[in-house]
């Protein structure tokens, strides 16, 4: 073995990168333990590593990562598997490798139902919230319906803050990945007040991230993930996290699997976002 597998064998431990509020892919529950769909996927990968290395007592560490530091931390060896909500795109593929896509998100917007907003074209002159470091506003500008419309952008330092902008009327819409919007809405004070509406601004394949140029490890991860897909285990995990009550509030997101993901489960792929959004 070389690369990650050697490192894991030598240190007797593997480090998973986790996100703290990427509902329901990877987040902290009410005991502040990492849980979520991607955490479960990673557990299966770790099992595969244990089996491969014959190390049943392999220690698993968790390292919280942010969208700022996740790539350098994977590159510098702090994190072996990033089990968060990272979009697989061409630029990132220069830095890191991805497991086959396990989730597909659509960038849309959340609004208060009472506002009556249904489309990008209704946002002229209105404040629109998004999260610092994400590129949703650029996507809006780039979208044909968004062309020529003058948005006022407001930024939250994380998704919760950005949602707070919508909640406190600092913004009329919050543009973000739809699973995250759905997660924020179900855990909000009055979920019935919000709706996810409007055009799909971008389709993004989300996948587990690992170090680049480590074919042995990549192969192991790929096999573990495709194994999950083939065995139908991934569908169960999906149902567990998207269609049934989840912590901390024990409500269900009711977020059925998209056609794109169904297709990807039949034909696993680690193709980047660009191949989904060809104009």
């Amino acid at each position: 073995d070389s690369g990650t597998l050697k490192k894991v064998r030598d240190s007797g431990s593997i480090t998973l990168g986790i996100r703290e509020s990427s509902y329901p892919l990877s987040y902290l529950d009410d005991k502040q333990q990492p849980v979520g769909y991607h955490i479960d996927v990673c557990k299966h990968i770790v099992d595969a590593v244990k089996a491969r290395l014959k190390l049943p007592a392999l220690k698993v560490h968790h390292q919280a990562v942010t969208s700022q530091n996740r790539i350098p931390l994977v590159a510098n060896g702090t994190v072996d598997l990033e089990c968060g909500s990272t979009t697989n795109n061409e630029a990132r593929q220069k830095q890191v490798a991805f497991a086959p896509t396990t989730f597909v998100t659509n960038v849309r917007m959340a609004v208060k139902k009472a506002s009556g907003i249904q489309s990008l074209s209704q946002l002229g002159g209105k404040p629109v919230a998004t999260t610092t470091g994400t590129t949703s506003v650029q996507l809006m500008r780039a979208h044909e319906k968004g062309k020529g419309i003058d948005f006022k952008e407001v930024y939250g330092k994380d998704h919760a803050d950005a949602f707070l902008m919508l909640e406190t009327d600092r913004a009329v819409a919050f543009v973000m990945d739809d699973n995250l919007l759905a997660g924020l809405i179900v855990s909000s004070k009055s979920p019935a007040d919000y709706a996810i509406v409007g055009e799909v601004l971008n389709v993004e394949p989300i996948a587990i991230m690992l170090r680049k140029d480590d074919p042995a490890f990549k192969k192991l991860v790929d096999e573990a993930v495709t194994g999950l897909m083939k065995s139908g285990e991934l569908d169960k995990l999906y149902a567990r996290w998207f269609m049934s009550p989840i912590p901390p509030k024990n409500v269900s997101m009711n977020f059925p699997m998209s056609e794109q993901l169904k297709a990807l489960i039949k034909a696993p792929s680690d193709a980047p976002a660009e191949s989904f959004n060809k104009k």
Partner: protein
Amino acid sequence: MNYHWNWGIFLEPVKSGDETYLDWLITGLGWTLAVSLTAWLLALTIGIAVGALRTTPSRLLVGLGNVWVELFRNVPLLVQMFLWFFVVPEFLPRDWSLWVKQEMPAKEFVTAAICLGLFTSARIAEQVRAGVGSLPRGQRDAALALGLTLPQAYRQVILPQALRIVIPPLTSEFMNVFKNSSVAFAIGVLELTFQARQMQEDSEQGIETYLAVTLLYFICAFTANRGMAWIEARTRVPGLIARSG
């Protein structure tokens, strides 16, 4: 290092738009300077006033000054930023609250500058008080004995000396303002840290981005340091060895 370097990234156009990443960083630098300098002016004005109040014979004024300082220096800036932005407007009457939240021009900038300004003012007040305290008491007596009123004594005699004495700590504080302004991204000011996050997300060249931003902050702080050194040299009094401590 398992990293794909690309130093040309700064001149490349951003993913969606006609700007380059360099343009983003320059915009960020502009807002960083705007927030920092506005906050610094606010902090100096209030800090000197509050610091001076705390050295007056009036117990009431001293007490008010103390409350001010303790209030603003005992809570982390990040938390204060959040409180100013999300909590304070909720206590305003509904119309005002909505105005502040939606209509107020450059509301993130205004909030960040005020918050950073007040936070820094508490530290300046503390230094000014120490500076005044380190002057021999005789200076105040001498000014009063000549018939100057207490405000005149402060204006003409006490503050000019105290401020000269506290230039070194003020220098650090000025450098801190630039560094602390990075917290303003938390409420969505489009300053350097904000642009850095944006750029690294958009370009995936995080290390180059953060190196560039670190360098820019360093330049800001260093310029602030040199600027204060220049002021210190300009205001140096021949034959006066700073009596500090």
